[in-house]
């Protein structure tokens, strides 16, 4: 069942915040990622990292699964890409607690069940270095002028490391 996203705000610090019915505060943010893609001058200035996390002081309140969080996160991503259609959003699943695979599966489910999949490409790669794997995705408009280059760059990075 389609649920309504929570209301979210952008703050003076250029982050997005929202509060759930369970009184959990979330923060979502975009950071510049050009330094990661310095070998790809055509796109490097449009690549942004995306992240979202609950405030630790309220995280204990999460309890029951709250489906509205996913719609809010997707709504923030969609809003950003509507205003900045040239942006290429890079998303890497946090490995801090070894739950990165679970995060990847969850985010894949969120995206594939949203309307966003019709307007935006989401390309996934498992980028492994040694025993560690990072589950990464890039999301960008299907009308992006550098869509092919973005895809090739992303795949090249993954392939080069995989062949190590």
């Amino acid at each position, binding site marked *: 069942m389609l649920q309504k996203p929570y209301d979210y705000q*952008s*703050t003076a*610090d*250029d*982050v*997005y915040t929202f509060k759930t019915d369970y009184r959990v505060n979330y*923060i979502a*943010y*975009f*950071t*510049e990622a050009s*330094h*990661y893609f310095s070998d790809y001058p055509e796109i490097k200035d449009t690549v*942004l*990292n995306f*992240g979202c*996390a*609950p*405030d*630790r*002081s309220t*995280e204990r309140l999460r309890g029951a699964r709250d489906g509205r969080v996913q719609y809010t996160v997707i709504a923030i991503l969609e*809003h*950003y890409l509507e*205003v*900045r259609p040239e942006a290429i959003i890079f998303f*890497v699943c*946090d*490995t*801090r607690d070894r739950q990165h695979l679970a995060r990847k599966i969850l985010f894949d489910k969120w995206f594939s069940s949203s309307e966003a999949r019709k307007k935006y490409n989401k390309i996934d790669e498992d*980028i492994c*270095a*040694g025993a*560690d794997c*990072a589950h990464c995705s890039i999301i960008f408009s299907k009308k992006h002028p550098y869509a092919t280059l973005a895809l090739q760059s992303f795949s090249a*990075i993954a392939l*080069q*490391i995989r*062949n*190590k």
Partner: protein
Amino acid sequence: MKTNHTNTKQVENTLATVIKQMLDDKKMIYDHVSNGGKLKDLKSKGINVAKAV
């Protein structure tokens, strides 16, 4: 051949470093913001917040 091999190794090492850097940055950001810290405070550590729209 040796030169090519060396270059390839250098690229691989660079890329592996980049991925590690991404994950380290992600952890740093999470630890900072989830404890109420401001993202802009991480500028000195190379984290630049993109303007909200």
